[in-house]
């Protein structure tokens, strides 16, 4: 396989990760849109009836939970490089974040090169690592757990009371959802900052990334 492809391409995203990613993206977008109707039914009637929004929200939530398991399974059991790929190093935190931010918000406008080059074991720059790490290890698990609790209030009532009550749970779920919405805006936009606007999207679809400096 590798021999037949031009050397300036690199296989960054294996198939299971891509399947997870697009299932997850579809799921999260559905959750956000249905969520708007669920919290603000007087202002947003997007799916006809309230229960249609609820049903769709439940299905999307389960999709996201299952695809999250797929993601964990792949990175922990198959690829076993989750620490390398996702966990920010001390250098990432100390200097990487600043360098990368300086590039995005200054050098980028001057037309300078991205200081980070993606390789399969080091595919994220410091900013990506930190945000993806937070998203995948904090936001997703929290939103999945709070969502599952909310889908089973009657049988799990005592637990819900023990963690601070259903209002706390609902409001945490809502704020997490808003964070996802915000993440999504930034994430989709940042994904257009490749050497062409669609380079990263193509990569996320096919797995192959054209190396920037060869282009």
């Amino acid at each position, binding site marked *: 396989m590798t021999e037949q492809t031009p050397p300036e391409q690199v296989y960054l995203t294996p198939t299971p990760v891509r399947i997870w990613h697009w299932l997850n993206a579809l799921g999260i977008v559905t959750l956000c849109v249905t969520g708007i109707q669920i919290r603000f039914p007087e202002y947003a009637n997007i799916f006809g009836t309230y229960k249609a929004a609820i049903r769709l929200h439940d299905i999307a939530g389960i999709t996201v939970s299952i695809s999250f398991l797929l993601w964990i399974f792949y990175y922990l059991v198959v690829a076993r490089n989750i620490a390398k790929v996702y966990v920010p190093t001390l250098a990432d935190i100390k200097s990487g974040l600043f360098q990368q931010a300086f590039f995005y918000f200054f050098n980028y406008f001057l037309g300078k090169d991205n200081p980070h080059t993606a390789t399969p074991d080091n595919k994220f720059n410091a900013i990506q690592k930190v945000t993806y790490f937070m998203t995948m290890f904090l936001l997703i698990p929290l939103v999945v757990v709070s969502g599952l609790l909310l889908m089973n209030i009657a049988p*799990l009532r005592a637990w819900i009371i023990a963690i601070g009550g259903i209002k706390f749970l609902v409001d945490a779920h809502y704020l997490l959802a808003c964070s996802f919405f915000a993440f999504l805006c930034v994430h989709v936009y940042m994904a257009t900052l490749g050497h062409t606007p669609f380079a990263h999207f193509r990569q996320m679809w096919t797995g192959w990334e054209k190396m920037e400096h060869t282009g």
Partner: protein
Amino acid sequence: MSRTRGYLILLLSALIPVMTAAAVGAAERSTCLSCHGERKILNKGTHLYIDPAKYESTTHERIGCVACHTGVTPRHPADGVRPSRAKCEECHAAVYAEYEKSSHSAYAGCTDCHKPHAVKPLLAVSGRDINIQCAKCHDNSATVKSHAKWLPQAALHIDALPCITCHTGSKETVITLYMAKRAGDSRLGGVALAGYEDLRSFIPPGKKIGRVIDSNGDGAVSLDELKAFNTSSQFKHISLLGTMMPEVVTHSFQILANRWDCTFCHASGPNAQQTSQLAFPEQGGTYSRMIVEKGAILDILYGTPDFYMTGFTRNKTLSIIGILIVASGLMVPILHGTLRFLTRSRRKER
């Protein structure tokens, strides 16, 4: 003048039997209950026993046994005469007329739902009590199953709501909070309604049970009092669960199309700020209600932490914080995108 006096006499003569019945009632009740309120009568037949604690808290207690059972002779029960039983419609004509019109009257009579010796007004029952009445014929798990076909979270709804909130025609509903306690054996995920005994030790001596939360004794529950209750370690095992009760009782049991639409309850209309009520369990299994400060059910942390109805009791401040989070996310593409557009020539030069 004479006309008025005529009416007065008419009125008095109508009242006399009632008054004497009430006076005689009390006396006769104690004689009747000296047999029918003793557990040994159970040996002659369980239907003969009347629980005095339950009976004495009913309104029927005030009208007395013989108002409904005429023909009890001094030689009763040895005479072998079977005392009569009053028909409910003799006194509850309006309810009877309403109920007769509903198709449900073909399936159940008054005494299928009400024990004449343990009747309670709506305000004195919990939603759970009502659903137990219905569950005699409408098996609970079958109801959950049939409702789950169209109702998301059917088990939760059937657990949390009295059937009559959806199946009778009261136009208004009242948010009612019940005190619940942890309990390992309950269907409600380890939570059961708390009774008087569970709270007895918290009642200030000589005071009514309402003082457990209404600490200043003004007969209403304020947000501050709720906060004190919810944050007190004393009451860690007690929480407030909410439900929607119909405001008035109607006996037109029916399927109402608008209850099929979730936003009948799950949308914050002008009612979102409504006052709610807190039901305190009394001795004998009844409840007394107290008004709760307006808007308390919307408070994020300290009003009713264990009561939330999606789309209805959302907190406005929190909604705005969430929208600000989304807006700050949107600013990145907007600001960066603008600068990107303005500096696009620099990247092309490369």
